[in-house]
């Protein structure tokens, strides 16, 4: 029994170490990502649940296993509005970098609470991954570089474990979705199709007929059966890619972004909420000069601190004004039904941007690995810690 437990413990340690190596990112990249994340949230996914305080209580249909099922109905509008405003300004504080860790934890908890009521309209949406990953980032150094009031640095082991946990959550989310699909989609019945059943539902029920959706009718259904298998294989694969290493994981992230892009084009489902889920694993510092600049030096040379602060405060104030006037929107201040088409077109741009960033990071990493291998063939490195992974940090 003891031997078995030691065996399990030892293997778990090896697996977690492997996951940490795969998911780790340098503090400077995480600091830059924090600013990107904040601006992204203020522009494209601003906290907005206040409207549920205005819908009739007759619509209240909470999931059985949820906090909302303990309540008799939707909370009053003023309470949901106050929750939204607090969350908006928490995002502003995170963007600027004031008490980032505390603000991120409070923001995520408030969001989990608010979305319990949003999902009481009868359906659980996909954005939970965004908040789960953000909660993991709170336990990294993303609030240290480029921050107005930097957080205290965390133990590097804790930061690495937090990012690995984020990777595991993403993999788990996709794996469960893929497992469910595998049970229904993997068959040789060409008269049924997973993708097509979704497509027809979206086309005829929700009138989603934009972008490339009309072209689906011109494609033979058998081709979509092949795509069903590919989608299931892709959704079941993230754990393998996580364990295979940094390059495989980033390849998977790139494929995932292309997968969402295809969903956007064909099914008209804008998965732009996944952009901030995938980018914490990208070496952002690569796009802003050398990767090896220290965190203290990064804070000293951060010349665009003032524009970031001004932009974040202006966006926060604009959202506050819109909400206090009785309106509100989560996406680019767009209200009404036009939100559907605008979010679809803009999400195309956002997903392409995400794919390009992951691809550049991947290419740089692969060429770095090749260079390292070539140099290690000609000479043994003096410093054993100077491998390609170290060069990325």
């Amino acid at each position, binding site marked *: 029994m003891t031997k078995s437990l030691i065996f399990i413990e030892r293997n778990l340690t090896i697996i977690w170490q492997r996951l940490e190596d795969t998911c780790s990112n340098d503090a400077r990249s995480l600091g830059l990502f924090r600013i990107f994340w904040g601006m992204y949230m203020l522009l494209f996914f601003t906290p907005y649940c206040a409207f549920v305080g205005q819908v*009739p*209580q*007759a619509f209240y249909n909470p999931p059985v296993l949820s906090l909302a099922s303990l309540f008799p109905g939707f909370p009053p509008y003023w309470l949901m509005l106050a929750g939204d405003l607090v969350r908006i300004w928490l995002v502003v504080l995170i963007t600027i970098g004031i008490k980032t860790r505390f603000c991120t934890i409070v923001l995520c908890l408030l969001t989990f609470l608010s979305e319990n009521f949003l999902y009481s309209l009868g359906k659980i949406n996909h954005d939970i991954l965004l908040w789960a990953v953000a909660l993991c980032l709170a336990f990294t150094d993303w609030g240290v570089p480029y921050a107005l009031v930097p957080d205290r640095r965390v133990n590097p082991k804790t930061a690495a474990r937090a990012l690995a946990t984020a990777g595991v959550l993403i993999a788990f989310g996709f794996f469960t979705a893929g497992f469910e699909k595998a049970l229904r989609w993997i068959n040789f019945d060409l008269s049924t199709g997973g993708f097509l059943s979704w497509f027809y539902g979206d086309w*005829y*029920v929700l009138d989603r007929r934009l972008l490339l959706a009309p072209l689906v009718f011109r494609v033979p*259904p058998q081709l979509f059966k092949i795509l069903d298998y590919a989608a299931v294989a892709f959704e079941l694969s993230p754990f393998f890619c996580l364990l295979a290493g940094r390059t495989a994981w980033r390849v998977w992230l790139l494929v995932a972004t292309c997968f969402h892009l295809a969903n956007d084009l064909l099914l008209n489902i804008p998965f732009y909420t996944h952009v901030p889920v995938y980018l914490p694993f990208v070496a952002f510092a690569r796009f802003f000069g050398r990767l090896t600049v220290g965190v203290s030096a990064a804070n000293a040379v951060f010349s665009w601190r003032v524009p970031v602060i001004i932009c974040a405060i202006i966006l926060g104030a604009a959202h506050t004004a819109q909400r206090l006037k009785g309106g*509100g929107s989560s996406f680019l201040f767009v209200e009404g039904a036009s939100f559907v088409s605008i979010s679809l077109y803009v999400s195309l741009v956002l997903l392409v941007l995400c794919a390009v960033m992951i691809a550049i990071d991947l290419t740089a990493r692969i060429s770095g690995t090749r260079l390292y291998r070539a140099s290690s063939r000609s000479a043994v490195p003096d410093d054993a810690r100077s491998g390609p992974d170290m060069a990325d940090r």
Partner: protein
Amino acid sequence: MDIGRTSIYGRVAGHDAWTRLSPPEFVSPIPDSFFSPLVQHYFGLSPVGPVANRTRVGVVITIDPRKVPEEEVKNAKQWLSARLKESGCDDSVLRITQEVVTFRRSDGAEIAVRSENDKIFDLH
């Protein structure tokens, strides 16, 4: 090919004809992804029977939907009535229909729509 769907219809103001309402426009600012669960519960206007959920291990869990009080039904009717008016329809009546659409696979054109279960709600 056939596909089942639940649609909402409003009566064209001043005419005795029905028009299918666009889900995203009708439920806005509620995201359109919530349209199907809302319409399957008839927007809380009509009692829905117990919902049976079969788990992966074969256990069936039956859940009794929440009973909607009369006052809440009245508020829901007012909300729906305002939406119908905004859509240019008669604000006193809403039709929720479970229907089967027959379409052509080559271009997606709707060939026929067959109503299977009609519920007409008087909103006044």
